[in-house]
């Protein structure tokens, strides 16, 4: 039952991928895409989707949209501007690796945080400790070396949205 729901949830994204890759939009292609999506879903869906109910929750999709827009415009611009300032005035650079804890439950939320950190210029996730829920982040300009302090500066916003989307 769980797997059937997972396959059902994957049909739309996988069919969309099929249509985009094919580049042709007839009804026949759509039908082929759905068949392919069902077969691929049957092969792998249970590995990708653990809680199918979450796919059908529009509030999560809403937060994903909001986060996507907010991240790609404001957060990215701010981070880029910070690094531009450092390039112009490298004396202020203070690189090092900080340890940042995270409190989300699911894998997807943790990966969203980690990739959000890596994708903003200036911070890179070097390693992740799943057991103790800690990330090791290389930070180009360390402001706070304590765990919680670094988390407040680097990943608190990401974590807020990630838990709303995936947890």
């Amino acid at each position, binding site marked *: 039952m769980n797997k059937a729901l997972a396959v059902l949830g*994957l049909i739309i994204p*996988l069919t969309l*991928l*099929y249509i985009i*890759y*094919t580049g042709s939009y*007839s*009804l*026949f292609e759509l*039908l*082929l*895409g759905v068949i*392919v*999506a069902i*077969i*691929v*879903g049957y*092969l*792998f*869906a*249970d*590995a*990708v989707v653990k809680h199918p109910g979450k796919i059908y929750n529009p509030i999560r999709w809403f937060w994903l949209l909001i986060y996507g827009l907010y991240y790609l415009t404001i957060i990215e611009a701010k981070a880029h501007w910070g690094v531009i300032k450092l390039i*112009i*005035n*490298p*004396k202020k*650079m203070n690189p090092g690796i900080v340890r940042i804890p995270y409190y989300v439950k699911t*894998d*997807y939320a*943790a*990966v969203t945080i*980690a*990739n959000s950190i890596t994708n903003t210029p200036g911070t890179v*996730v070097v*390693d*992740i400790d*799943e057991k103790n829920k800690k990330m090791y982040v290389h930070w180009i300009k360390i402001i706070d070396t304590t765990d919680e302090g670094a988390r407040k500066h680097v990943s608190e916003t990401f974590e807020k949205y990630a838990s709303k989307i995936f947890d």
Partner: protein
Amino acid sequence: MAEKTGSLRDISLAVLASLIIILFAIALVNTMTISIPPQEQHRWLSWEFLTSTYNWAVKKTWAASPEVVTSVLWDYRGLDTVYETSVFFLAIIGGLMLVRNYHPGKKYSEKGMSLIARTITKITVVSVPVVAASVALHGHLTPGGGFQGGSIFAVASLLAIVALGSGFLLNRGWSKSRLLGFRTLGLIIIASVALTLPVIGLLDGVKAYVIQNQYKPWAPVSFGYTANIPFLGIILYSGTLVFLNLAEFLAVSAGLSLAFLIISLPREELKKSGGIE
């Protein structure tokens, strides 16, 4: 470096370096490279194929497919491709022979890379087969085909083996015998498609060739080339090409995945089973 940063010297050095790079680039583009104009004339061989594979006016030499490479592979020299597929099959069998003594336990290790790599790889592993299927299903229309699609599919298996541990595939039932079964099924479909028209020809008492695709005046049997499906319109499927592509896709996907799984078997356990020294 840190104490004299931002000084005039650094800036002038940076400007100088970028100027040199730009000058070299311009010099390279203008003098050293030979520009290759788009070819306007075809050689006779390519002209022959380009004007025959999808020529609706001369149906005795056509393959009913606008994709020349697939037409050559599965129609004009179809038997050759069948043999190639068989050779590949034998190579897989040979690989299996090397590990024939290995009878692994119930549970396999699913220890892969870090959480980030594993999660992203899972998303990739469901996306890659969709692209592979698209490449294989349109092999008779656009560049691609069964072997290409199967190779793309095998990338998903390889990614899963490396990033998620070979246990990810083995624990969900991708066993040696099952993959070999799909490999064999693909080959059986290819063989039956190749032999369908000769059998029909034999029954009807007309001439027909092994792995024949389209109607010939002297061999009047054919797989057809378009299908009129209600609500979906007229679909061009190019006779045998789409079936052969699908069978090859199945065979290559299963075969290459099996090869990667064999390669990923741990050496220590192979030693224990006595297959290798």
